[in-house]
């Protein structure tokens, strides 16, 4: 980990100096031990604030999208960030030539309180960045992942009422802070359905019914493009098991339409954007 940080700083200094980058997005240390926070470095002087350790949990793929200018942006990308960048490119939110991607193979981040590897990293299927301009450190061999859909299968095995009660209890706790939407790399809409109260999609009330509407519709919108980066679960202040929604979608998509890895490249259309004539037929 440590020498990766050194090479990252070294490369950052060079790239900023020779003007290939207007600024670089990475992480810096937070106030407390084991806490990090994203960092935008514009000048060489700040390069020493740049860090790379086992607590860099934030997904950086969404940050460059806010910059609508023509500046050249450097982004440190691990497996999930790289797929996030691919998703943004597929959705036409940013041009590839404005990005300079520093790829880092990721061994998985740790939870500052417990010290163990985060759940989302244990279940990560793409530790190596799928797209990068430069690779810092050599590619890791992708370890087999334990059954990611175990929890989904468990929920599916419950009876209909038990499933309803399980999810009703989960969504009764939701406070609609929309952190899961704002962190998600698939959510780049200008005005989200949940902010369109006048149109009638979703009221502003935080009742169980509105929370369920929010949860299910977000599952429907983002699920088929989910990168399984686990950020929604990390940022949820109420600790709701949101990944079990996306995992369910991924499981169904694999079963029905064949393997689809979101963000593996910046061109394959997502499952619901195209069809096969011989798709599964259940409605005759």
């Amino acid at each position, binding site marked *: 980990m440590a020498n990766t940080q050194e090479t990252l700083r070294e490369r950052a200094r060079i790239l900023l100096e020779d003007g290939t980058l207007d600024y670089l997005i990475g992480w810096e240390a937070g106030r407390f031990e084991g806490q990090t926070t994203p960092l935008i470095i514009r000048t060489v002087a700040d390069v020493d604030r740049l860090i790379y350790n086992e607590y860099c949990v934030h997904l950086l793929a969404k940050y460059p999208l806010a910059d609508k200018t023509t500046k050249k942006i450097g982004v440190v990308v691990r497996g999930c960030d790289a797929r996030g960048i691919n998703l943004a490119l597929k959705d036409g939110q940013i041009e590839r030539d404005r990005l300079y991607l520093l790829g880092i193979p990721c061994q998985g981040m740790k939870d500052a309180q417990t010290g163990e590897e985060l759940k989302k990293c244990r279940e990560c299927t793409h530790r190596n960045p799928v797209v990068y301009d430069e690779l810092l450190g050599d590619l890791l061999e992708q370890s087999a992942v334990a059954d990611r859909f175990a929890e989904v299968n468990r929920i599916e095995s419950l009876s209909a009422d038990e499933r309803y009660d399980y999810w009703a209890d989960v969504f009764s706790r939701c406070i609609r802070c929309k952190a899961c939407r704002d962190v998600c790399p698939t959510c780049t809409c200008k005005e989200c359905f949940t902010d369109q109260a006048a149109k009638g*999609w979703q009221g502003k009330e935080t009742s169980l019914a509105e929370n369920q509407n929010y949860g299910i519709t977000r599952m429907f919108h983002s699920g088929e493009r989910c990168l399984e980066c686990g950020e929604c679960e990390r940022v949820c202040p109420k600790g709701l098991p949101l990944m079990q929604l996306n995992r369910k979608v991924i499981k169904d998509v694999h079963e029905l339409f064949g393997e689809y890895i979101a963000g593996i490249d910046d061109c394959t259309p997502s499952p619901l954007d195209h069809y096969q004539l011989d798709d599964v037929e259940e409605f005759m």
Partner: protein
Amino acid sequence: MSLEQETLNAVQENQGGAVVQEAPEAWKPKILAFTCNWCTYAGADLAGLNRMKYPADVRLLRLPCSGRVNPQFVLHAFQKGCDGVLVCGCHPGDCHYSTGNYFTRRRMLLYRRYLEYFGIEPERFQIRWISGSEAGKFRDTVVDTCEAITKLGPNHKFREEGR
């Protein structure tokens, strides 16, 4: 559980007051059918032309194509008080707009699994391909759906309080 609900429970437990659920009067299922204008709606009209008989619990909502059915409408229907939702369209390959129902098929294949994952009984949300000439199939679909949902009883899942 939301705060109000917790407060209500706590009040009940501590002050021993039981909140009585009033018995619903003769309940009739309320089923909404999103139908595509060119096939199923025409099939339903044909069923009318042939004076076929089917239960009166289904209300048809006409849309240009089954591709226009945004799954959010389905959830909205359940939330506002429907007991069952039907989405009907032309048979794949027969769509008046040629590819509309291919996308619907994929969308509904997934969405039906999501709602089941959230605990809704499969009979409550069904999708059927019914062409403009299959009046009989339309009637049978309505009869079966009404029967199934009457058996299941009123739907309280996803429903807004007081609906």
